[in-house]
């Protein structure tokens, strides 16, 4: 199997440094507003600080792939004396929770590493260094290289999953007639 090099862009989270301020949420939602920074709303953010304050959990989690079904796991783990719900660390938007979904449409959101910026804005504005941007090269099997879905594709896929392909097609056809 042919191996190819792929550049991976990611954010390393150092949860112990997080002071829980949620600036990452604010700046993410502001950057993705249209036009950029014209509004902000942490509910639209692709990074969320999961909190259980008295349990000492302040954990920034950035949005991963959308999953169309709920997972079966709801395990709890104790790490360094802190109790984590499995859901706390999951990066997926899924039908069982509101996390990483547009509050208006319910469509899923996915971190795009603020494409076009030097580094994701959540990292840039995290002044306590809980978030660190990393770029690294990895070798992967050629067949595993799949183009990252665009934002529109992620949205469409979730609509199809929710309403069925035909209904989405019918809606698009109806809208296009309206011109």
């Amino acid at each position, binding site marked *: 199997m042919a191996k190819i090099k792929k550049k991976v862009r990611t954010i390393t989270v150092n949860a112990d440094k997080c*002071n*829980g301020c949620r600036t990452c949420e604010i700046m993410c939602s502001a950057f993705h507003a249209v036009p950029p920074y014209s509004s902000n*709303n942490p509910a639209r953010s692709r990074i969320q600080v999961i909190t259980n304050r008295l349990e000492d959990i302040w954990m920034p989690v950035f949005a991963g792939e959308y999953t169309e079904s709920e997972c079966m796991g709801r395990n709890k783990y104790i790490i360094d004396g802190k109790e984590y719900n499995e859901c706390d660390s999951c990066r997926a938007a899924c039908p069982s929770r509101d996390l990483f979904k547009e509050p208006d449409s319910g469509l899923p959101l996915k971190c795009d590493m603020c494409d076009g910026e030097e580094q994701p804005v959540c990292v840039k504005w995290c002044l306590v260094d809980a978030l660190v941007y990393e770029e690294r090269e990895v070798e992967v099997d050629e067949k595993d290289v799949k183009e990252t879905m665009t934002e529109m594709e992620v949205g469409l896929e979730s609509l199809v999953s929710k309403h069925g392909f035909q209904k989405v097609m019918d809606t698009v056809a109806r809208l296009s007639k309206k011109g």
Partner: protein
Amino acid sequence: MRYAEAGYYLEVDLATGNIERVATDPKLMELHLGGLGTSVKVHWDRVPPETKAFDPENLLVFSTGLLNGTPVFSANRTVVSFISPQSGTLAYPMMGGFFAAELKYSGYDKIIFKNKSPDWVYLYVSNNKVELRDASHLQGRGAVETQELIRKELNDPKAQVAAIGLAGENRVFTASIEQSRSSASRLGGGAIMGDKKIKAVAVRGTGDVFLAHPEAFMREMQGVTDYIKYRWENPIKDVMTILSGIGSPQEMLHTDEKWHTENFAWGNARTRRRDFWTEEIDESWSKSQHGAVKRLISCYNCPTHCGALISHKDTPRYMAKCFGKLTYAMAAYVDDLDFSWKILQRATEYGVDSFSTPQILAFAVELYEAGILTDKDFKGCPSDKEGRFFWLLDRVARREGIGDILADGVYFAARKIGNGAEAFDHNTIKKHEQLPIKLGTLDPLYFLMYSTNEKISITQMEGQWPQSAFPTMEQRQEFVRDWPQIPDEKFKQIVLDWELRGEKSIPYFPTPDMCSEIVDWMEMMHNIDDAVGMCCGMSSFCLKPPYHIHNYPKIISAATGMDLDEAGLKQIANRSRNLHRAYNNRLGIRRVDEKPPEDHWKKRFPELEEELLSTYYTYKGWNNDGIPTREKLEELDLGYVADDLEKRGILKNGQN
């Protein structure tokens, strides 16, 4: 579209259960910005001066600031305003935390509560869904506990809850409103909530906050961020550690408490322990603090670490901030910091102010030791210092026995107890407990700040002016070298001329004229902060802060779209300040009320103090009784206020 502000108030009539979403006039922002400014206007328009704190007509207003919910770092304060049961004036304690931003995202700038609920309720605000919910099951629960219970009940970990504990339910005059790692704690907001039978307010919002000019706004944000980083890397020289950086004094981060413990008075604001901070204490307190502080935390959108999650041995966890770390231990004369973590937890659950309450407890101990309170009053009280304080705290929060009298605060308790107890009320201004600090020679700047500000609490009035003269010219030159925050270059010369001793030292220097200008500057910045919802720790309470009179107009303009310059911003701050002043004048405040405690400074200068007050009043455009003149009020578009004051005989027509 409205920028920065939501444009709606939420009006809740607790008597009928009626809830309305009311659009506001955009003109209000131009006249008073928001936050404290517009809240004062609401009270002026709707609460007549005959109203007493526990009358149904007393409004309780939870307000966001103009910049809350925008990306402006540290704009996260909620202003809670009401007529105080303690001072009888318009109080406005503030809290950081996360409440204000969530309310703004819900689509409201303020929640206005009127009348009283017949049963215990909590208000739940979630965007357009707003409801009063039964809180009978929460009665008697702690303020931290209640927040957690409501979050579970709503199944929403991001709901922000402001709650009262038992003290608020029992209308203790020093009852606070607790929320996350913060609290609105001065002057009895918790008592007003309790009187209206509101156990808590929970908010969750998922709406947008809009900015008018995003590019200009982000340029300013970048400048602020660059400065924060610069100041972190370059602490101000020759000032104490807690003042050398930015953010509120970070008591949870720093363990060195030499300055506070040796300069502030212990007990009932009596004793300075000048040699307290020994190596042994340093070691023991540092160990205690490092053991108790589980994590340093901030408020919403703030890069500092003023608060902490506390986990001390078997004490239930809670979040603490700032000076509460010291107040109970110092008031009880307990030298073990472990005591602080324990009693602060109970005090936080009860929901009591950690400035006033320890002083009230220390006042009771002092009366007992003086024989004015007796064994009968203290029946069942342990004899050790720690046990005594816990016992007294329980009595106050529950209003049991002597606690019922103490729960009204030192001023009222002293008068009720009588038998000489009044002489032990030596640290209140306008019936409100002050910072326990007793010093040497009168400080003219602090004299004015203590006496005249509507906050009636010095701890958040000072800030941008050095607390004392620098000993050497080199230090002064270094300090003024890089000081863009000042409103006028002439302030630099005052610092350069200001000596520790001799002709140009306190109390006669800075001169009354200079003092007036400096205090006016402090006051202006605090007023702007309180209008935009900025934490004064990042602005007016901070030496050389990131926000100041030169960048604020640009930030506010970019956020709101208002065409605002420095002169315009000063005019707005002045307008709101004078409206607040007139409101409290209407409630009875006069020159005679504007005096610090007699023993606040060892050396007093009665004539100079009168001159200071007169000079300051004149500078502010107030008459000799501290009431804004018609001329001043008209200059600030407050002619209607002058009419009202004249109608009531507070301002005499033609005499100013």
